């Protein structure tokens, strides 16, 4: 019973293994990078635009609005990181329609790598926004006794991100595999559709949680800088 695409090895030379995870990850990166480069090579700003440009604009504005809703004031600073997280995980899930494809996020290596990116990005954004002293002071809030607990919570959040995504993707692939052996073909098809749905939800959850962690690290703490709600609409 295959637990992850790490075990499908295409080519091996000594210590270096080209397994399905690496191959499919690079395939996804290639498709997304080349596709977006082609679409954005001829951008038009008048009323008529190609449908692909329209699609990209819809996606980008939707992600920007979501980032702003979470509480990050300047979404353009963060959309590079958060948008990439969402698009990579979503694309990795959507391509399960293609036969013979295994989502690279079904391997613990990929999800831990993505979670480590978030672990590194949260302090980076926090320090960029509040300075080193301001960010380090946030670990001592509300009292000094909370310092070890704040550190532990950082690590456990990262672990939870990785295992959540891995568990969802791996369980989808495994249920389909098990059902294929015992039921008529209609049930694995239905489970594949369910796997698509949960994959998209997990992509959204991953990026929204990363946005919430970044927002928690960059929120302004001095009370005079809090914006007063505008009462005249």
């Amino acid at each position, binding site marked *: *019973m295959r*637990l992850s695409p790490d075990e499908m090895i295409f080519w091996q030379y000594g210590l270096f293994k080209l397994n399905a995870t690496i191959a499919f990850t690079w395939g996804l990166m290639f498709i997304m990078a080349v596709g977006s480069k082609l679409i954005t090579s001829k951008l038009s700003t008048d009323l008529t635009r190609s449908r692909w440009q329209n699609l990209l604009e819809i996606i980008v504005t939707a992600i920007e609005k*979501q980032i702003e*809703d979470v509480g990050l004031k300047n979404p353009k600073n963060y959309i590079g990181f958060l948008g990439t997280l969402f698009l990579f995980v979503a694309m990795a899930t959507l391509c399960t329609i293609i036969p013979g494809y295994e989502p690279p996020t079904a391997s613990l290596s990929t999800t831990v790598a993505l979670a480590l990116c978030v672990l590194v990005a949260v302090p980076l954004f926090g320090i960029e926004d509040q300075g080193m002293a301001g960010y380090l002071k946030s670990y001592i809030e509300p009292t000094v006794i909370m310092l070890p607990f704040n550190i532990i919570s950082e690590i456990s959040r990262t672990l*939870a991100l990785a*295992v*959540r995504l*891995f*568990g*969802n993707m*791996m*369980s989808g692939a*495994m249920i389909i595999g098990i059902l294929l052996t015992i039921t008529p073909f209609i049930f694995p098809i239905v489970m594949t559709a369910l796997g698509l749905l949960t994959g998209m*939800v*997990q992509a*959204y*959850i991953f990026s*929204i*949680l990363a946005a*919430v962690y970044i927002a928690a690290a960059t929120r302004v703490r001095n009370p005079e800088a809090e914006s007063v709600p505008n009462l005249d609409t």
Partner: protein
Amino acid sequence: MDSMTIIAVASIIVAGITTSFGCMGPALAEGRAVATALTALAQQPDASATITRTLFVGLAMIESTAIYCFVVSMILIFANPFWNHVIAQIAGK
């Protein structure tokens, strides 16, 4: 019973119990979460976008505990280090 049998029996039984508790707890919690979210939606339909998004984030956090139990069950059944160790010992003899 020798140690090999004990390891196999314990792994199988505990894998089943892990999955069953891992499905019951989060299901109850998610039911409560959705019920409360529906009440809030009924009282304030304007905030439906925020409520829906927060509901999904909360459901994902609850679901992740179920996923932890599932992963532990899978490890017990398919990637059990104690079983692999015992099998390697038997094969080595």
